[in-house]
């Protein structure tokens, strides 16, 4: 029973992080029509910045905020330097085919990932780092019994919850959120309505950058940081987003938790090496049975 419980808790707190990663992916997908494979690379980079600050004795929270800001800034840079010029280029014959048009941003984001990883390697070498947690990371004590999860786990779950609520309210309840949804769904009509779709697009990149930095910051205390450690989170985040529905914020969060639990259970009851296989099975199952994801809408399997 104890093992079961600890799997559940581990799954939930990891799931929260996957939820954040998935959220970031969905944000850029809905806001800019691109699946950003470089996302966790951005997170890795800003988390390294946080780690450097902490190593120089700045408080966790200052480093936290700086990391979030740099994550957002990186997102904006990616959009302005790479994605915008990419969208403008229409004259190459290679881009005449719809298949290539959806492929090219993927390749661009892979290139960005490479740049970020190489840059991190150059600046900080491949040394693994970590940093401490802001709240107690020992097992919580409830009624005198040590529970298999920590205050930090609760912290993580809490942050994800807050983020989800905040982003949902933002999208459904504010004018800017409406502008973002409109620009993603139908840029032409949005532009005609006077919406500055360029600005809106960049904003989605910024928000997504912040969300993924958050994921990176929250996972690092328990797993060491190196240029490649967050790759796994990208994969799982992607699968979570697909499972939940690439165009649904709530869906991506649900997907994150589902995958967190899956990974935890595979870890505990099976072998850690099977994680990738398990993820693959889930991914393929969803894509075959319900390609739009749990909460996705049927129309949107945009190519």
């Amino acid at each position, binding site marked *: 029973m104890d093992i079961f419980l600890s799997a559940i808790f581990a799954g939930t707190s990891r799931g929260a992080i996957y939820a954040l990663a998935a959220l970031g992916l969905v944000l850029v997908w809905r806001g800019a029509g691109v699946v950003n494979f470089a996302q966790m690379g951005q997170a890795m980079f800003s988390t390294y910045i946080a780690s450097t600050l902490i190593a120089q004795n700045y408080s966790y929270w200052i480093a936290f905020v700086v990391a979030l800001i740099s994550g957002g800034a990186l997102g904006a840079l990616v959009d302005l330097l790479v994605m915008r010029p990419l969208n403008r280029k229409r004259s190459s014959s290679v881009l005449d085919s719809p298949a290539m048009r959806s492929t090219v941003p993927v390749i661009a984001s892979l290139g960005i990932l490479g740049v970020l990883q190489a840059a991190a390697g150059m600046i900080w070498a491949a040394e693994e780092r970590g940093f401490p947690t802001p709240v107690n990371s020992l097992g919580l004590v409830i009624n005198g019994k040590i529970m298999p999860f920590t205050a930090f786990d609760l912290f993580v779950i809490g942050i994800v919850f807050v983020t989800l609520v905040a982003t949902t309210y933002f999208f459904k309840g504010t*004018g800017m959120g409406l502008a973002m949804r*409109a620009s993603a769904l139908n840029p032409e009509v949005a532009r005609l*309505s006077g919406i500055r779709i360029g600005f809106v697009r960049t904003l989605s990149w910024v928000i997504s950058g912040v969300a993924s930095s958050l994921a990176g910051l929250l996972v690092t205390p328990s797993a060491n940081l190196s240029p490649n450690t967050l790759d796994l989170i990208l994969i799982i985040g992607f699968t979570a987003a697909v499972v939940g529905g690439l165009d649904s914020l709530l869906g991506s969060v649900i997907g994150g938790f589902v995958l967190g639990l899956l990974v935890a259970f595979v870890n505990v009851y099976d072998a850690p090496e099977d994680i990738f296989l398990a993820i693959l099975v889930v991914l393929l199952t969803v894509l075959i049975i319900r390609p739009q994801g749990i909460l996705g809408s049927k129309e949107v399997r945009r190519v």
Partner: protein
Amino acid sequence: MRLGIAHVPEGHAVISQLSVEENIEMGALFRMRSNKADVRIAIQEIYQLFPRLEERKKQLAGSLSGGERQMLAISRALVSRPSLLLLDEPSLGLAPLVVEQIIQTVNDLCRNTGLTVLLVEQNANTALGVADHGILLSLGTVVADLPAAQMKADVALRAAYLGY
């Protein structure tokens, strides 16, 4: 749009996945910050103009009929209180009765508020029925530039270009 010109392109351009409300709101977004109260008034006026849209406020735009979608597209343009409204082939794909309705509503709006409308239409009969002035294009060249009443009266012109 920010210059006071609102464009309604052909093909009732609305965003199907958003609700009627949201589509209309979209048109006013860029004015929201400066003039929230007036936007609300503008939206109310629109609903008075097109009561059918108010009935279907929360529905997704994609579930509306063609005529309703055209009304929605026009509403979206109007909510920004433009001084000039560009209407591009509003009658495309719509039943004549619906077209009449819409054109009349827009016409009334013009008379009441001084809105200028630039109407591009193939359906000359309907267009000339409400217009003050007409410009006739044939293959890209201006063939006639007359007050509407004159154009209507010019039988030869009508026969040659307008087919009635």
